[in-house]
């Protein structure tokens, strides 16, 4: 076994183990951290395939941004796990049977097959990023633009679903605050001056 195969199998083993941990961990924070590990090892596998741009993007976008947000959400939500885990043991036999059957079938079909991408080492100085960029902005410009529309829809949907105008919120109107005049705040009242001592005496 050469070094590359060894690295592949170690990364693969860690990936599978952390993937299992994501679904079995009791604590949701641990599950999220296991997912981070899974992304890291997947990025390692991509580096092994000489897809360094994709690997770095995976770490930057998924580990750096998505998972951090995810962790925040998990920590802020007060998840009631006992309620979520209700009925776990009663579903388990059926679930395990189906999963084992599926796993067995998929292994028998896919075991020992190659998809014919081996041996394609690129010359030194070949830039993966450049090739990807030029393809993305020429041949695949159309799907790229559609993906942009999907992001726009995501923004519209997120705002439409979460924003609501509440009538009872107390808020400040800065424009009104700035344009306020003295007359609006202070009222001058003319009063006749009367000696105080006399009123006291008359009440007595």
């Amino acid at each position: 076994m050469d070094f590359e195969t060894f690295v592949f199998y170690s990364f693969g083993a860690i990936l599978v183990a952390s993937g299992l941990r994501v679904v079995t961990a009791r604590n949701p924070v641990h599950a999220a951290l296991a997912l981070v590990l899974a992304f890291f090892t997947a990025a390692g596998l991509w580096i092994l395939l000489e897809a360094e741009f994709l690997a770095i993007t995976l770490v930057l976008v998924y580990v750096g941004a998505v998972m951090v947000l995810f962790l925040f959400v998990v920590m802020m939500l007060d998840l009631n796990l006992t309620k979520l885990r209700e009925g776990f043991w009663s579903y388990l036999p059926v679930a395990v049977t189906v999963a084992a059957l599926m796993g067995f079938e998929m292994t028998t079909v896919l075991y020992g097959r190659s998809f014919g991408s081996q041996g394609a080492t690129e010359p030194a100085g070949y830039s993966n990023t450049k090739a990807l960029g030029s393809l993305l902005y020429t041949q695949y410009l159309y799907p790229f633009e559609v993906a942009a529309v999907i992001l726009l829809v995501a923004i519209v949907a997120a705002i439409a679903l979460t924003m609501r105008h509440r009538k009872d919120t107390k808020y400040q109107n800065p424009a009104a605050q700035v344009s306020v005049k003295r007359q609006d705040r202070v009222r001058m009242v003319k009063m006749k001056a009367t000696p105080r001592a006399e009123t006291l005496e008359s009440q007595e």
Partner: protein
Amino acid sequence: MSLVSWHDLAPMLPEIFVLCMGSLILLVDAFIADRHRFVTYAATQLTLLGAVLLTAQGAHGETVTGFHGLFIEDPVADVLKLMLYVSISAMLVYSKSYLQVRGLFRGEFFVLVLFAALGMMIMISAGNFLALYLGLELQALCLYALVALSRDSAVATEAALKYFVLGALASGLLLYGMSMVYGVTGHLDLSGIAGVLAHGVKDHTVLVFGLVFLVAGLAFKLGVVPFHMWVPDVYQGAPTAMTLFIGTAPKIAAFGFVIRLLAGGLQPLAHDWSGMLVILSVLSIAIGNITAIAQSNIKRMLAYSTISHMGFVLLGFLSGNLQGYGAAMFYVLVYVLMSLGAFGMVMLLSRQGFEAEHLDDFKGLNQRSPWYAFLMLILMFSMAGIPPTAGFYAKLAVLSSALDAGYVGLVVAAVLFSVVGAFYYLRIVKLMYFDAPSDPSACRAHADVGVLMSANGLAVLALGILPQPLMALCTYSIWHSL
């Protein structure tokens, strides 16, 4: 090398127009007060009208591709897109007052509907796995958000979550299948895949393995048994206007998806996928029709009826030849017309604080509004497949194509189950004509809804008496596209 030429952009003018107008409406709507919201409504209808004109003007009866084969414009795409615009426009007319009463008549609704339409157009015109998948996601994201739009309703939120989770699962299945097919053929391009498959590949098992996942993903999106569990819950939980939308336009897009994927790219594998479709279609027709009998909620009943109708559409694909695809296309177009009318009627009977969701709400409709009762009678007869309505001819065309392909037992089963199905359609007719109404007041509708509903019901009748023009259009477009 220039990035984009006019040659690429010309066939996709309708898509570009809808995208620009959607963005424009999004911007303008932010500055419109609630009482002037009809401006957004009118702009959306005008956008659809413009798309109709652009598509009709660009239809030359030949296949044009753009963007390195990622985009295809052919007669099938033109016909499906025109029907798409018509159905969305009718949906907007039917649901206008329903949405106004429930505080859902908002700018986001129209923007999301337009973007969903864009996603469906992209699916219909896709020539590549990437375009197919992105169009599907664009459409699906809009639909999830639309279902959840009435966020104070717990039922609608639950429906949206179910729809979202199962939709995401289906997308995962589709992508996995696509990756397998890509692994074997080395192409994402549907024409490229067909080219490789025509010469035969050595790894046929993996190809079929990928095909299983593709068909399962498709079945989820179409809502056929055994991937149908989301359909009744979403149809019942969503506000009726959204149910009307989900039940009509996306079915046209899903048909386009199946035509592009199975009949376009994977046609050489027809022998493999037709076996899978046999199981899906016979189970859908059986379970859809039998379960619908037990429903007391009309939206849920129509959901099960949708499942059985989708089973019939798949029946058209079984033969794997152009005649069958033409019959399936005719069935989808007729189904969309019937579904528009039926859900439109449910909304017509609803009013402020009252949803006409139960079968009992149709009691004595003949005494309240005889004309609407008659239209509903036509729609129900058509769904059951009773002559002289369009539904009869659609079922006949699909069944005869399956019969020609030698599926005699399957055809017999389909006919038997559609007889079972006739029971629950005719039950509504019985409720309307032979029972006393609980509320004798006539149902009022705006003039535009009344006119459109009449046109819709009469179109179903007219297509049953004179099916030839539409059938000829479907056959012509299929023959000139594939």
